[in-house]
């Protein structure tokens, strides 16, 4: 019996990110495509940050999830187009917020690196995922992982992670 592309999508639908288990790989935009290649089915994933230690775990998770269902498919890593937080689904962003991580803002169109570094603060008022206040302060540009920054809410005093636009 041959496995269809839809069955692979269905098998991977709820596969969670190993680091942030409330959101699935599909919602994060890491799971890019399922297609039929020359040697059978291929699952295309794209790396987030270059050095993200979760990437090999993600590849293993995809492979073992499929193997457990008797599905054979190759996992292909694709660099371009580069992963962006803009691919994160709205449902995924809402799950992040409910989990206590402020979801990423839209990446600035045609971002200019010089403007990005010199005028960061105002454009990036990050609402607190707990109380919704925008009266928040960045305490570190890098949080528990490279993809997150550390913020503090000045109203409810809660420290929280912000998933940075990438």
């Amino acid at each position: 019996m041959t496995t269809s592309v839809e069955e692979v999508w269905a098998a991977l639908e709820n596969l969670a990110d190993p680091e942030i288990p409330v959101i699935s790989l599909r919602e994060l935009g890491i799971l890019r495509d399922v297609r039929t290649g020359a040697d059978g089915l291929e699952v295309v994933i794209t790396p987030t940050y270059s050095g993200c230690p979760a990437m090999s775990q993600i590849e293993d998770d995809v492979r073992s999830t499929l193997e457990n269902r008797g599905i054979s498919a190759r996992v292909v890593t694709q660099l371009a187009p580069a992963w962006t937080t803009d691919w994160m689904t709205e449902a995924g962003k809402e799950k992040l917020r409910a989990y206590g991580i402020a979801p990423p803002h839209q990446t600035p169109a045609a971002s200019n690196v010089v403007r990005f570094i010199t005028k960061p603060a105002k454009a990036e008022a990050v609402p607190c995922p707990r109380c919704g206040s925008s009266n928040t302060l960045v305490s570190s540009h890098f949080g528990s992982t490279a993809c997150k920054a550390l913020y503090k809410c000045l109203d409810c005093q809660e420290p929280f992670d912000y998933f940075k636009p990438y």
Partner: protein
Amino acid sequence: MSASTDYLLHLADNALVLGQRNAEWCGHGPILEEDIALSNVSLDLIGQARMLYQLVAALKGGDVTEDRLAYFRDSGEFRNYTLLELPHHGPLSGYAHASLDYATTIVRNFLYSALMALLWEALQKSGNAQLVAIAAKSLKEVSYHLRYSRDWLVRLGDGTDESHARAQAALDHLMPYTQEFWAACPAEAAAVAEGVAVDLLTIRDDWNGIVDAALAEATLQRPEIGGYVPEGKNGVHSEHLGFLLAEMQSLARAHPNGNW
């Protein structure tokens, strides 16, 4: 082909060597947030190095792997800027030791990140599609590295007398090493001729603009530079690279072909 691989190795070695240097702060950061921040910057840099080494390994073929390139070459074969291999403190004589100096770390990361933000952007026009893909990812990451190091540069420079003095001393020590960015390099020139690399002189003015604006905000004086122009990118290194590599490569060399 060989010119391009030497140039790609230069980019990879830059990222790996600075990644290794920054990682020396892991477990030793002045505060927990900074410990984590620098470790995250290191992860990005080592990730960039891995993608580039994988690309070089694919181009070279045979039994060349990313691990062979990172762990089984000696200092004369490394093509990183000398700036990136220097220890986290100013010059010392003889066998003297000094503790890690955060200002040196910040100034170095700022000078390099400012260059790479411009270079990764320019490399989006490279003729090598895989390098374009790596540059696109790396640009996103270096934008955060640059913002991070620039913020700290301003905070240290425009901070206390002590932090200002240390930031100025780090700048006086490191700035002459940036002359290497613009110096001639046969591998770079050949890669430019092949359409893989871009001529760094085209981004020099923009780099000066980023540096001068940040230094003004940080109330730091840009030092006059001159004298010896380092040639790390041509394989001529300071004595510090050998020690860095010894530490980084010892495990892989003690257990060649090891798997875990």
